[in-house]
């Protein structure tokens, strides 16, 4: 929190600039967060929880943490992001644990790297619950206002690639000014937003909310490059008009795994609702093809680039022309409402075509549409203008998070919001920023891709983008990232201690299993045959037995009589009942047990069973780290490197990568260019 002296200094600095008047000042704070979506909420909480006076601006307080598209959190690789965010001390995981109505571990039949949690949310409950957390967090204020301008002051001797500006505040539409030290931009799809439903175009943000029409100009004035992206959402239908007997019901898991590492697993075992699966057919595709000329995208009205990996039904029909059908998921929007979300069929076709096309789908023959599908176009920045901290390179104290950085999805937004919020806080507190690299988390992959590769369409997290995914499992996010969350001021001592203990138990148990031998005696052979496992030829370690697909840590317990008794500290648990408003974490029940909890047993199994693969992947990470750790001097002059090809020189100069590793991932920079750069650096250094 600012002291009186800092306040006075901030005001004096503001008034030094010509044209500024004292009466414009509404407040003096540390951090301003522009936007109250999933990114904004995490950023504001990260700031406030670090003790910073934080204001979160939103165009509508009723739309905080709004889910304007799909009614779920998580999914393939996005589920990983939520767990990582949770391990770092973010809110999304805890909030969905409180408000989900169905939960499922996806890809359970595949390897542990691709298991991914997805939960259907009660949208209203999700929004209200998040708002309650924000409203009850100390130091956090919510302000309904459109932010129009970023106020900066000049800084002398700015380094290369810097515009020589520093954030000192924001101005809202009324002309009022909030002085601050840092700003997180999390404007979502609101900047100069335009919604398209066939020929009908409205200049609004999602769900008819007010668009923000001034901030883009202010960003441009600071020299920030703007691009235009597009995304879309399908129709919502009245449940009473659908025939579910023609669809396949999709149920949640019998035993639900919570998203949050600080949610008591018992607290999330509850009654769940069903989703439904149906399919499009030739008839649907015919209608779409016959009306493509009325689609704003194909008619060329939409300028923005849409996401390839979250395509509209028009795109799917055009791109997969030989596919006879596409999946359609009918998902409830909440317990409070009749509205059903029609997953897989987002569209920007006109209302009449939408109705005709939806009605060809089995079960939707008599559907009544509550809200039409629409496409939305919005301004965002080229994220290559950001550091890995999500700070803008050109302006001190300015951070970007979520869709403004060119990403798509709630989880991608929230994860970035958390990182941007943490780093804005670290900046205000004069502490070292937090970064996550590609070998540490999906969040690291997401950020590195955004700031390194020139994303030409909304970026969606995908499993295939993570090279080291066997190490980046959703089940070990706490082991990977709790420490960073602690450094970021968002994870308590208690939570950190728990994770450290967990890791040490896993290590000890794995070590014991690999050194404990069993002989090929009759009793053992009999035991193995009772589990349909091949008899032993020679003595072998318990670990080798566990690595057999048909065996596990638990199933071999009878032949491992000397399992040590681990006295566990209680897992710190976030209470779902009672006064949970503050979102603080309390100690769970004190229990000292002999048997290990299921999450630890799971880690032991995975560590033992996939040992060889894990080791090979770790070796790949070593190679990766070597290049990441070769840092490029900040003042390097690429013009000085004679043997560099022109294209590479331009790309490197524009992006100014931090490391050789990052440089090697820039498109247009070849391995040969990297060699030249390495040699130049090596010589310059000595």
């Amino acid at each position, binding site marked *: 929190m600012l002291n009186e002296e800092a306040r006075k200094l901030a005001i004096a600095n503001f008034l030094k600039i010509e044209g500024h008047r004292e009466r414009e000042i509404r407040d003096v704070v540390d951090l301003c967060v522009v936007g109250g979506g999933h990114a904004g909420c995490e950023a504001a909480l990260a700031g406030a929880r670090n003790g910073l006076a934080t204001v979160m601006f939103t165009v509508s307080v009723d739309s905080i943490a709004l889910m304007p598209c799909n009614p779920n959190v998580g999914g393939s690789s996005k589920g990983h992001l939520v767990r990582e965010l949770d391990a770092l001390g973010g809110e999304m995981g805890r909030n969905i644990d409180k408000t989900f109505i169905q939960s499922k571990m996806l890809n359970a039949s595949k*390897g542990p790297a*691709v298991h991914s949690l997805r939960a259907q949310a009660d949208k209203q409950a999700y929004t209200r619950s998040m708002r309650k957390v924000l409203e009850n967090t100390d130091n956090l204020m919510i302000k309904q206002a459109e932010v129009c301008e970023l106020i900066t002051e000049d800084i002398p001797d700015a380094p290369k690639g810097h515009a020589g500006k520093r954030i000192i505040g924001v101005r809202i539409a009324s002309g009022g000014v909030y002085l601050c030290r840092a700003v997180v931009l999390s404007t979502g799809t609101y900047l100069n937003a335009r919604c398209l439903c066939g020929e009908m175009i409205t200049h609004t943000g999602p769900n008819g909310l007010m668009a923000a029409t001034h901030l883009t100009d202010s960003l441009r004035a600071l020299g920030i490059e703007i691009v235009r992206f597009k995304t879309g959402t399908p129709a919502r239908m009245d449940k009473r008009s659908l025939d579910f007997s023609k669809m396949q019901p999709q149920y949640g898991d019998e035993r639900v795994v919570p998203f949050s590492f600080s949610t008591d697993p018992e607290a999330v075992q509850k009654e769940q609702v069903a989703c439904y699966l149906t399919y499009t057919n030739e008839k649907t595709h015919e209608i779409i093809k016959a009306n493509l000329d009325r689609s704003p995208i194909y008619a060329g009205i939409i300028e923005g680039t849409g996401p390839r990996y979250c395509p509209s039904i028009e795109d799917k029909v055009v791109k997969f022309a030989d596919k006879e059908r596409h999946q359609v998921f009918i998902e409830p929007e909440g317990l409070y409402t009749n509205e059903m979300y029609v997953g897989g069929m987002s569209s920007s076709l006109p209302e009449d075509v939408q109705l005709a096309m939806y009605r060809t789908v089995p079960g939707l023959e008599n559907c009544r549409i509550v809200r039409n599908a629409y496409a939305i176009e919005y301004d965002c920045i080229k994220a290559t203008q950001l550091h890995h901290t999500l700070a803008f390179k050109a302006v001190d104290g300015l951070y970007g998070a979520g869709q403004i950085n060119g990403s798509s999805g709630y989880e991608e937004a929230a994860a970035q919001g958390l990182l941007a919020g943490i780093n804005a806080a670290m900046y205000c507190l004069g502490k070292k920023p937090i970064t996550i690299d590609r070998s540490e988390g999906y969040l690291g992959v997401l950020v590195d891709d955004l700031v390194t590769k020139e994303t030409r369409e909304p970026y969606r997290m995908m499993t295939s983008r993570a090279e080291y995914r066997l190490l980046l499992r959703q089940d070990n996010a706490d082991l990977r990232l709790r420490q960073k969350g602690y450094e970021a001021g968002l994870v308590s001592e208690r939570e950190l201690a728990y994770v450290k203990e967990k890791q040490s138990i896993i290590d000890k148990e794995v070590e014991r299993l690999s050194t404990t031998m069993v002989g090929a005696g009759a009793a053992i052979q009999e035991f193995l045959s009772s589990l349909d496992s091949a008899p032993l030829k020679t003595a072998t370690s318990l670990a080798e037995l566990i690595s057999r697909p048909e065996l596990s840590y638990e199933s071999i317990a009878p032949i491992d009589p000397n399992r040590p008794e681990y006295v566990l500290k209680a897992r710190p648990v976030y209470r779902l009942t009672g006064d949970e408003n503050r979102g603080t974490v309390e100690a769970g029940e004190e229990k000292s047990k002999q048997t290990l909890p299921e999450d630890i047993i799971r880690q032991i199994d995975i560590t033992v069973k996939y040992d060889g693969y894990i080791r090979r992947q770790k070796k790949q990470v070593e190679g990766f780290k070597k290049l990441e750790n*070769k840092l490029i001097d900040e003042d390097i002059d690429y013009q000085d490197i004679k043997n560099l*090809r022109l294209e590479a020189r331009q790309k490197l100069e524009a992006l100014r990568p931090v490391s050789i590793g990052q440089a090697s991932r820039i498109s247009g920079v070849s391995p040969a*260019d990297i060699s030249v750069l390495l040699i130049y650096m090596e010589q310059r250094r000595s």
Partner: protein
Amino acid sequence: MMRDTIAAVATGRNASGISIIRVSGQEAVSIADRVFVGKNGSHFLKNVPTHTVHYGKILSEDEVFLDEVLAIVMRSPKSYTAEDVVEIHCHGGITVTNMILEQILKAGARLAEPGEFTKRAFLNGRIDLSEAEAVMDVIDAGSKAAVRNSEKQLAGHLKQQILSLRETILHQTAFIESALDDPEHFDLTDYPAKLKDIADALLDQIRSLLKSADEGKLISEGIRAVILGKPNVGKSTFLNLLLGQQKAIVTDIAGTTRDILEERLTIRDIPFVIMDTAGIREAQDVVEKIGVDRAREAAADADLLLYLSDLTSEFDGADLQILSEYPDKKKIILLNKSDLDAAGSEQEVREKIRENCSGEEIPVLSISARNNVGIDAFRDLVEKMFFEGHLPSSDEFYITNLRHKEALMEAATSLEKVEESIRMDMPEDFYSIDLMDAYMSLGRIIGEQIEDDLVEEIFSKFCMGK
């Protein structure tokens, strides 16, 4: 500055009158001092001024006389490596040289890695990129195509094979990953069996490549000399003469050779890969045109150009034009058909070259390929160029070959692991870990894989003692 002191034999491995052992590093003088004894039996090297030569002898630990030598002391920074350097000039002979080196190593030096002296010179800032010609060559090779393993040493077909192996692997990885992210549109049912077949085929190919590596065929193991010239000047006859047998088809018809004929042979024990090419002219038909293009490509990759011209016709603008296309190549001009009535002379050709090739010194020799005249002079010339360091030495080939072999073996191991995963019924997402390893190993061969120890690698291409 580097901490440890290194030593190696700086002269070639061939028997020669004098061998030089180079010692470099902080301890260079004191280490040399331990093994070097002056006339009067005293150790005095430590106290001598820099850049002075001293006569003495090297004794073994048990005081046995090894050789009489000259020691040159060059103190930092004015030395090849910018460190303290001592050079010991001894009487050649592999055994004696090695024994002296051994004494120096026993006295505290470490055996230098290939190229380590040059590397130290570079890292110590004694030579910079623009000065270090050898380094520049490597970098240039890199910027142009694929760097470090000197792609040009790769036989052309090998590169194609590696590229196609990599493409297959990448395609399979992409398929697996697409299926992970979009199971609706990419189906993995029955995929493992299919991948098993693909991995089998890949392994077969890699194993056969490994076999050729053992036979030394992976890289053109030898100095790449390309015979170049206008049509019908006797290029094929010349090749046959060097080979001592009829390999290339020889006729009087210009344009007989259309593709490149590649032959291995040694000249005075130096390994060569000699390529006979189509005569360079405005080609009449498509096939010949391809031949001419290939000839030009081969010339661009060559270590040495053997430019053949015909004394019965004039050495004209067309000849000069072809020569000027390869300004940076080492060349020898051979004037063939010296047995027939000459239209020009060696002297005339020399003058034309002096006038037109901006002062380049190109040796010119008259020969008669048909009558075996001038061939010994040619062999002498080539040998001289080799020992003067104008042509690459065989150490480089050996190292490159070894590196390729290692990478191939690693790729094979990774693919075997993929097959093991399939056998063990692992989920599909496990396959891609080892597929990517195989992909990266193969990438190292063609320089598509960035490695952090690049500088090490570059200098390891230099010979020991350089």
